[in-house]
């Protein structure tokens, strides 16, 4: 397709503006993490590594990162197991109520977080009589993490069809062997993509978390919210934010490489 010179210029300008809108604020956060100003004045009056040192000595911040990692890993693990089972059940078997169950599985991602939060809070405390803790938080996160795994896996199963599984069973493999040697290897990249999304969803979730975490459980988003408007802490929050950006680039990079490698194979 050929575009005129002015059209190309216009499209380049729009692209630049959109990308700038996304990445300039991140750059500001990055610069501010070295700023000598405590209340984030712009431009920064001077630069220091003090906040970085302080952040890595702050027990609250490090604990919050660990808690968030625990919660995200656990709810992703739950979602991977249950999401795969549900999608296998719904895609490979026919039974009464299949469509209804499919809808009910996807629904939590569309529900407003505040509704999910209140509902689960009620269910845990008054319905089940359970103390809010890190476990209740993991269960709450798993409800919407399942959806991303489910969506990825069921799309893959649909595309795969049943002929590979038929072939495996035809050659003498039982159901479990077929899953281990044929179905699972075909699902691996879908599970990775779904798991990555689930992890990201859980890691920065704040609304449902507010309602379902025990009072002693402080995830990173909760910690940031608590500290952002506290004197002396804003620059430390910036440091944490920069670290998170750097950390989240790594899985995205690998996800892209896996997707690229798969395209070459097909």
């Amino acid at each position: 397709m050929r575009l005129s010179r002015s059209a190309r210029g216009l499209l380049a300008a729009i692209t630049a503006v959109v990308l700038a809108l996304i990445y300039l604020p991140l750059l500001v956060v990055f610069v501010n993490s070295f700023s000598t100003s405590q209340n984030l004045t712009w431009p920064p009056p001077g630069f220091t590594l003090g906040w970085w040192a302080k952040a890595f000595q702050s027990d609250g911040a490090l604990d919050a990162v660990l808690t968030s990692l625990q919660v995200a890993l656990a709810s992703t693990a739950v979602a991977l197991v249950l999401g795969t089972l549900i999608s296998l059940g719904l895609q490979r078997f026919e039974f009464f109520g299949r469509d209804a169950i499919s809808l009910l599985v996807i629904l939590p991602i569309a529900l407003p977080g505040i509704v999910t939060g209140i509902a689960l809070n009620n269910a845990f405390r008054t319905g089940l009589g359970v103390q809010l803790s890190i476990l209740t938080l993991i269960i709450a996160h798993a409800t919407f993490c399942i959806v991303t795994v489910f969506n990825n896996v069921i799309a893959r199963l649909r595309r795969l069809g049943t002929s590979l599984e038929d072939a495996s069973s035809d050659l003498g493999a039982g159901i479990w062997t077929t899953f281990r040697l044929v179905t699972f290897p075909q699902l691996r990249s879908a599970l990775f993509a779904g798991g990555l999304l689930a992890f990201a969803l859980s890691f920065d979730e704040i609304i449902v978390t507010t309602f379902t975490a025990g009072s002693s459980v402080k995830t990173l988003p909760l910690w940031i919210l608590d500290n952002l408007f506290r004197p002396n802490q804003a620059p430390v929050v910036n440091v944490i934010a920069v670290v998170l950006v750097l950390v989240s680039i790594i899985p995205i990079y690998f996800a892209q490489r896996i997707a690229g490698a798969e395209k070459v194979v097909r």
Partner: protein
Amino acid sequence: MTGAQPAIRLTGLTKSFGNVNAVDGVDLDIVEGEFFSMLGPSGSGKTTVLRLIAGFEKPTSGTISLLGQDVTDRAPFDRDVNTVFQDYALFPHMSVLDNVAYGLRVRGVSKRARYEQARQALDTVRLGSFVDRKPSQLSGGQRQRVALARATVVQPKVLLLDEPLGALDLKLREQMQVELKELQRNLGITFIFVTHDQQEALTLSDRIAVFNEGKIEQLGTPAEIYERPSSPFVAAFVGTSNIFDDTVSHALLGRAGTHSVRPEKVSVTTENRPLAADCTAAGTLAEVIYVGSSTQLIVDLDAGTRVVVLEQNDAHRVATTERGVRVTIGWNNSDIVTLSAPAPAPAILAPHP
């Protein structure tokens, strides 16, 4: 192990999807070691019968026996039959060698033994040098051969082939037909071959079952199916036929019922020239289609029907190539096939009111 026992016996086999009977009461014995084809248009139930034999579908009613053993309720992995799938269904994440060794692997054969056997199987299909490739790096014909090696390396009693040549181009298909026939002869196992290509079925098979609407329309050798079709459906589906309905049969043959005659059994000459035939009819040449080794002539008979004639383009062919020319066609009584006699039969040469 007696030879009299059929490799596969189907009794009253029925499979319904909703209210549709995809397979509708099929009884069939397939002899050990034969190359058996199930031929029919799409939706005729032939593939469903194959999937029932493989165990991918459960019959609504009826039984399937494999060498005298009832396997109706057994899972696919518990039956001594293997399938070559239409889309090959090779495992994309495994090498060619691992694909072929798969059946041995799940049977617990040691790594060395299974790779050894898989290599041998790949040698038989002339793919010995492709062991390390992934299926995606092979051509259609090569994938087809991997699928064959993978299904035969476990030495099944019966090999099921679901339109295995459907995805190949014509030249390759003809070459693979020869290879399939050779493979079957060398292995000596029963092949059940599903196809919608009548030419393929006629070329390869010892016996053919022609399927229509979930039922076996006719069962016989290729020559029986082609020369003596038992119904208008078989006459029309297998090869080309001139089918004369009741009225036309009266006019041309002087008897009631539905009859057919193959285009190559009809001879043709320009009007008023002698024709050595039991029976003749006059008409006008409507179309001349040159097809290489032969020429197809379409003749509008005065009796009010259209007849296709196939003439070999050999040294004896008379130049009847101009449209609109008056011609005489003729055939011998022995080449006329009675597809259905009018009730009450027999009606041959019966006087009519």
